[in-house]
């Protein structure tokens, strides 16, 4: 478990400092050296355009992890706002908001993201939009559930009687209770976002081509599977290691929170 936490910290550092460690320019094309095997000059070899795979992986960390962080944060904000609106807005608002949420959930998230990103055309912004718009529903459900359970608590009732506005109540009395559970949901969605970005990249609906994103690297590598199979291994390993580390960190967080609750 401790080793996985170390891996999670390493990932954060990788996202931040990875590009500085890259030995070459990740988009520099070097045709004479194309598809070279791993060796002293290129530690993990080069791709079909002679670009250094190690450098692309390290730069890719910033794109894949950074975009996943951004996307999971945007959907966290949307989902929490929607969920609290349902919990605080009364019965009609609750029904309308939750049926809207169900409509969004009536479709596998990644498939919806493929449709949206595909129709908007490849690009970083459409990727962010597609994955954020399809990723907020779980937060909304959790936020609404906890919000409804808080409604009858003494301090919330008193805050209402004291004339606090619903927005102030949401800010000061609901958000602090929501944070632990939402953080656990967030780790899961962070991992899902990494998978989503690489899936869209692999389908060619992801970030623009020269950008070294892990899924797009896999798409490039697939064509040369027979001649240089190793080229296909590295980006996949990077995705699996990141998702695994984040998932396990999320599990540990959930266990820690439920332990604390059962003790208090």
């Amino acid at each position, binding site marked *: 478990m401790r080793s996985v936490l170390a891996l999670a910290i390493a990932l954060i550092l990788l996202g931040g400092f990875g590009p500085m460690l890259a030995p070459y320019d990740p988009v520099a094309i070097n045709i004479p050296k194309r598809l070279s095997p791993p060796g002293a000059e290129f530690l993990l070899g080069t791709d079909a355009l002679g670009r250094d795979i190690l450098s692309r992986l390290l730069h890719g960390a910033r794109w894949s992890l950074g975009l996943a962080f951004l996307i999971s944060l945007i959907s966290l904000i949307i989902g929490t706002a929607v969920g609290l609106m349902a919990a605080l807005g009364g019965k009609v608002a609750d029904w309308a908001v939750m*049926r*809207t949420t*169900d*409509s*969004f959930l*009536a*479709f*596998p*998230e*990644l*498939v919806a993201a*493929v*449709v*949206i990103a*595909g*129709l*908007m*055309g490849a690009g970083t912004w459409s990727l962010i939009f597609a994955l954020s718009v399809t990723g907020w529903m779980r937060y909304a459900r959790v936020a609404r559930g906890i919000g409804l359970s808080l409604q009858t608590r003494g301090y919330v009732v008193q805050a209402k009687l004291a004339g606090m506005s619903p927005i102030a109540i949401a800010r000061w009395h609901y958000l602090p209770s929501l944070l632990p559970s939402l953080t656990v949901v967030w780790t899961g969605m962070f*991992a899902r976002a990494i*998978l989503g970005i*690489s*899936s869209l990249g*692999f*389908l060619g*609906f992801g970030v623009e081509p020269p950008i070294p994103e892990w899924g797009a690297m*896999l798409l490039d590598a*697939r064509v040369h*599977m*027979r001649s240089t*199979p190793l080229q*296909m291994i590295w980006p*996949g390993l990077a*995705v*699996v290691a990141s*998702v*695994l580390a984040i*998932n*396990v960190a999320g599990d540990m967080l959930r266990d820690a929170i439920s332990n604390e609750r059962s003790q208090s």
Partner: protein
Amino acid sequence: MIATLSGLVLRAIVVLSGTAFLTFALLWNAPGDPAQAIAMARFDALLSEDVIAQVREEAGLNRNFWAAFWDWVGPLMMLDFGNSSVTGRPVWPDLWTSISYTFPLAIVSLGVGLAVSLPLAILATRRPGGWVDRCAVAIASIGTAIPAFWLGLLLILLFAVHLAWLPAMGARTPAHAILPAMTLGLGVAASLTRIIRSGILEARNQPFLPAIQRRGVTPHAIGRDHIAPHAAVPVVTVLGLELAFLLEGLVMVEVIFGRPGLGTFLVSAISARDFPHVQAVVVVAAVVFVTVNLLIDVIYKLIDPRIAARDA
């Protein structure tokens, strides 16, 4: 029971209408000129404004939003998906062909998932914390972290390229389905193993078990009559999520293995901007998804009467 059932059905209808509206609104507002894309797909190059305008007229893209929406929804109620805007052929036969490739694959993958996860979870819970258990948990954690498309590529690399045992691309023979089914099935197995394992462990902690044991009931009978139904509840709960995972995986896996199923149909329709095709896939997937979730809700209430009592 009938009241809850009709409530669930009503909810499913509301949700499906919402999905249909959202889909149509999304496609209608998608950036880029669909008429131009269709004209490109049909006539290749050398497009004048005149040609694009004619295509726009023919594909019905020059109407206002609501008129177009009702023109789409009306026939949809009669299961008429309209004609492809690229080829002009009716959508349904082509859609049906692709479903006939996707549906068996999905079922076989679910079967593979269950066939792997059930014995693995039972074996793992024999001695919780033992090395079998730890291995099972580790495999399951890694399995949920592997993207389906990468697992598919690895399997192609091993079984099709290196060993040359199995075909990788296409869907001509049943052998072509082995690698895709393995890819999806292993993904399903990974998440199911976790759920079944924790379900069994939780059922073991139930306070009534020692009492039954002291009455002299055999461990086998306890497992069958008391632990299995308890462990089934969380499994049924996640079946909906499992289905979503399966549909997401199907899109990627079909593209990798070149199977002409729903996923390939969807991706090529998106690239060609063939809106009737995209809409048809979205509607079919949403109907399947909502129906299955509805069934799960019903089964859930049947196997665990406490839930029905709480909801009523």
